[in-house]
């Protein structure tokens, strides 16, 4: 019995150190977040030689303009640390939602854990937008006003610093009456997530 306990302790100790070589913050090596009903461990790639390659290492982005640090007044821009806290404190409690507004094909290939896909083109579809508002917990009253008292906090992201899809989608939400203080913008997007070696999930 003692032996088993000892092995258990040793295993916990070992697994605790598993993601300590490349940590997120001094007191965070990994977190768990629910993605489609399953707990996913989110950490950083532990191989110090690992380099970002492929589509998201591409520097040439014609016609894609750099986005400002702050897109609208009162919309908070966040980084990776804030996004991880959002996963822990909001997404896991169903009080928050992370929305990937890239085309479905990109989302299917790879996304940030716990993110749901709402391709930016949806913003022109009134019926779908109303459904989304409902999912987010906003209630449309008979007189047309939007009650967002119990609505979720929502983080939007797209490809990265040069991608306007998330800013445009956010704008559409604000126009529908979603309150700015419940909307956040992860400007770094999928590209920065990748270049910092964070865990991704495959959705197809």
């Amino acid at each position, binding site marked *: 019995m003692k032996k088993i306990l000892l092995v258990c302790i040793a295993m916990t100790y070992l697994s605790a150190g598993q993601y*300590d*070589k*490349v*940590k*997120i*913050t*001094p007191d965070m090596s990994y977190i768990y977040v629910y993605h489609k009903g399953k707990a996913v461990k989110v950490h*950083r*790639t*532990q*191989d*110090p*030689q*690992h*380099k*970002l*390659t492929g589509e998201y*290492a*591409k*520097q*040439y*982005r*014609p*016609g894609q*303009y*750099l*986005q*400002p*640090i702050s897109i609208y007044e009162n919309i908070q*821009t*966040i*980084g*990776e*640390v*804030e996004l991880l806290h959002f996963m822990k404190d909001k997404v896991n409690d169903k009080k928050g939602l992370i929305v990937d507004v890239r085309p479905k094909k990109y989302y299917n290939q790879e996304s940030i854990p716990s993110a749901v896909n709402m391709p930016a083109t949806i913003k022109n579809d009134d019926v779908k937008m109303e459904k989304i508002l409902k999912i987010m917990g906003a209630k449309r009253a008979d007189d047309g006003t939007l009650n967002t008292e119990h609505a979720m906090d929502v983080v939007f992201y797209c490809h990265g*610093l*040069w991608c306007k899809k998330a800013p445009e989608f956010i704008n559409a939400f604000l126009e529908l009456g979603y309150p700015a203080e419940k909307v956040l913008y992860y*400007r*770094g997007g999928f*590209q*920065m997530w*990748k*270049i*910092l*070696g964070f865990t991704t999930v495959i959705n197809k």
Partner: protein
Amino acid sequence: MKKLYLILFLISTLLVNGAVVEIVKGMPYIIVEAHGKEIKIQRTQDKNAYLTNTFALTSRPSPPFFIEPFSVSKGVETYGELEVLDFIAKEKGIFIDARLENWYAKSAIPTAVNIPFKIFLSDTKKRKEVLKSFGAEYKEGLWNFLDAETILLYCNGAWCGQSPTAIKALIDLGYPENKMKYYRGGMQAWQLLGLTTIVPKDIK
């Protein structure tokens, strides 16, 4: 014949302009002066440009490398690339590369002056000189930052603690937070976007 030349000229300008990757719409580049030379800051125009140097590395070992929060302190504004370019173009203050000298020598953002973060951490003659060069006054053991300039600091990127450390040290000294700006994306985001860098050691 003249007509033909004119048409050829028009076509060639169209082709050239059509291929330009702009920073934002209508702004293909800014011209700055660095190390006594005129430098054009623009995005890469090379169709096959990928980030392949050491800034493509995803996982710097910790310590000392951790992901920095989006904001250093409430009163210190975080900048993106557009805000950095505006700061440089309009000469809004002092643009500081807070990395150690060997990093700076290899590649840097044009117009930045190298003031390694360590200088800000201890009370030395060098630190006094630097603060005075910012416009701060030192009288009877006290700093007066009333006429101090706005400073913008950056280092290697979201995983680099050097510029945040410098900013925190300056806050402790009483440097007004609204006179400090933080470019969190740093060298990594700058290069991932294909923006122009210089090699200071080759210029000198």
